[in-house]
């Protein structure tokens, strides 16, 4: 066991990767809502985000530096890149108006206070992972 250094909040592994590195890792300073948790990462959303990866969710901007990628979920608007902090609504990119980037989604990079939702298709994708690659959990 060691401290997660360098200011990193956490990371995970998608289904199907090597068993030796499978799992979710979260910085104790960004975990939970009390104790060692530090603002603005003190509402437990680091775990929500990383477990989303563990259940096969991608970042909503699809980790591309433009509008070319897809997070493989139909009901998250295409967007150009990550959002940070607590953005003002709407933040329009990739012709995704009028509502713009879904920066309140758990799979963006905003502060915990600014994120509060998965979409129905993201939930379906996670359920599919639970029924298949992660079926060993149940």
């Amino acid at each position, binding site marked *: 066991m060691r401290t997660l*250094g*360098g*200011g*990193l*909040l*956490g*990371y*995970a*592994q*998608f289904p199907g990767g090597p068993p030796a590195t499978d799992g979710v890792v979260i*910085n104790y*300073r*960004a975990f939970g809502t009390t104790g060692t948790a*530090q603002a603005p*990462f003190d509402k437990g959303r680091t775990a929500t*985000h*990383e477990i989303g*990866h563990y259940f096969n969710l*991608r*970042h909503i901007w699809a*980790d591309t530096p433009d509008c070319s990628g897809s997070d493989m979920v139909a009901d998250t608007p295409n967007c150009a890149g*990550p959002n*940070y902090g607590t953005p003002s609504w709407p933040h329009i990119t990739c012709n995704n108006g009028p509502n713009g980037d879904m920066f309140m989604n758990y799979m963006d*990079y*905003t*502060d915990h206070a600014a994120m509060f939702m998965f979409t129905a298709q993201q939930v379906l994708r996670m359920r599919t992972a639970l029924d298949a690659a992660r079926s060993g959990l149940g």
Partner: protein
Amino acid sequence: MAGKDAEQAQLFGTTWVHVFEEDSSQGAMYRSEEDDIPLSRRPRERFQLERNGVARVLIPGPDDRYVEQPAKWSEDKGDVVIRPCTGKPSLRIIAQSPSRLIVRAQQPGDS
């Protein structure tokens, strides 16, 4: 000479992390991973240097784990310059103290 040796040992024995909050007109600030670096969702690029000219640039991947990008380093006009094999801009270390580096990104062909 001992000071130079210690400086080099620190350079090679450390994972250097971009602390963008401390960037200035001089360049980008990198600090040792062991320092108390603020939490950030914005990814922090990192690098490691080996004495044999190998460098590793680490960038966050799609599951937030760091992904290694191969690179090489060499000395140029007294500075250490890291050249990623991916064609991304080189990183020139223009100043060094025991736990901090100031780094300038430069496009191929820049001096």
